């Protein structure tokens, strides 16, 4: 075998933590003799690494930031890969009485009205951006003593919410991973507003000559290929499907 070419992929911690990449990438690596170096950081940091040309490709879930990334000419060939969904978790006694609600915006309104604790990641991650946009839609400005901004990853947010018996917005993948470790249950799910889309974007080779553009495009091709999308569709955790592929209908 020839030494594999190393391709650097910056992605969010949640993607890495879900375990999907461990299934999705090895067949690609074997096929093209490319080794994908996964650098799991916050969404903001992942995009920053792309902007600086320190990675070749990014896989993130913050549509607004991604748009800006492409508009500024830092990234090219953005493709939607998949989505999963967000869910609202809370304590089993459910003080805000949101259990079974479909409309997430009114659920959020209830939570504030009941002055129940809410844990926010507050780290400008994709999840955090989504949460902020929901507050905006509900026309509520949180930031009182019941609103805990922890500035950390999803896992810790769940842990904190469990400790404080608070509500929290979470992606389904992380929830499944933490299910046994926390005392929270799913109270609100299924709203189309709760979709969490992931995109893959190659770093613009015109800005950084050393960027491995060809290999990046090969990876984009792989994850959006029939096989790639199949792997995504069939990936299960705790018996549940985590991601829904969108590249190929």
């Amino acid at each position, binding site marked *: 075998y020839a030494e594999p070419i190393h391709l650097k992929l910056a992605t969010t911690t949640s993607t890495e933590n879900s375990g999907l990449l461990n299934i999705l990438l090895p067949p690609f690596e074997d096929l093209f003799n490319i080794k994908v170096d996964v650098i799991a*950081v*916050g*969404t*903001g*940091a*992942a*995009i*920053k690494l792309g902007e600086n040309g320190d990675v070749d490709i990014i896989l993130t879930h913050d549509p607004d930031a991604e748009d800006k990334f492409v508009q500024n000419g830092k990234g090219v060939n953005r493709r939607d890969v998949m989505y999963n969904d967000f869910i609202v978790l809370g304590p089993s006694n459910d003080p805000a009485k949101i259990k079974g609600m479909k409309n997430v915006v009114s659920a959020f309104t209830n939570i504030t009205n009941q002055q129940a604790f809410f844990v926010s990641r*507050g*780290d*400008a*991650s994709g999840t955090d951006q989504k949460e902020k946009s929901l507050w905006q839609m509900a026309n509520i400005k949180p930031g009182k003593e019941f609103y*805990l*901004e*922890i*500035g*950390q*990853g999803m896992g*810790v947010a769940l842990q*904190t919410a*469990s*400790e*404080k018996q608070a509500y929290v917005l979470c992606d389904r993948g992380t929830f499944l991973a933490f299910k046994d470790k926390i*005392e929270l249950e799913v109270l609100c799910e299924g709203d189309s507003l709760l979709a969490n889309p992931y995109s893959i974007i190659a770093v613009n080779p015109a800005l950084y000559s050393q960027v491995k553009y060809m290999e990046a495009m090969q990876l984009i091709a792989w994850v959006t290929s029939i096989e790639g999308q199949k792997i995504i569709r069939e990936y299960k955790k705790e018996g549940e499907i985590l991601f829904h592929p969108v590249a190929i209908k």
Partner: protein
Amino acid sequence: MDFIIEGIQKAFQLIFSLDREIFSIVLLSLRVSLTAIVLSSLLGIPLGFLITIKKFFGKKLTIILMNTLLAFPTVVVGLMVYSLISRRGPLGVFGLLFTPTAMVIGQFILAIPIIIALTHSAIQGIDKRVEKTALTLGATKLQSAWAILKEARYAILEAITTAFGRVIAEVGAAMMLGGNIKGSTRIMTTAIALETSKGEFGFGIALGIILLFIALVINIFHHYFQSRRV
């Protein structure tokens, strides 16, 4: 490079804007770390002293263990304390998690091996005649211990400084145990970690510079105080 420059600029802006949030973050950082250092010095210096002076079974092992604990990763300290004080942990009833007290506990555990190990090596190097001279002149055990500590003061202060540097700069335990909750347990280093994960590298550097600046001020005080006492 540009982040550094940006960071330096931002640091100045932040300092001169007297941002209230930054101010309270700085204050909490100092409160937590200074409390942890005071407590760990109060316990660690006497322990380091006793380990050095006394002959006891397992002395060598104790010293090796202390040196080993210097390599205690902050996250692991955080995890261990977490599993004791979390709701499901044995000390859960006290509701310590996500409070400054929890951070103090974590930093205390990080600081104490440093204080003990460096106090030990400080006292190790002190002339054996100090103790004899003190006893000869009628000192009690405690007074002669004090005489030894006084002769070792320079190295012991350095031990405290080292431990202080370690805890004020640590992030793992504070993050895990404090929770980086805005307005209540956010300190300098957890704020830096947050900004970094957001991709706000310049801002992270700016906070780092402020942290170093604070350490500088403390060290200047400490140095001044030290040279006056000698």
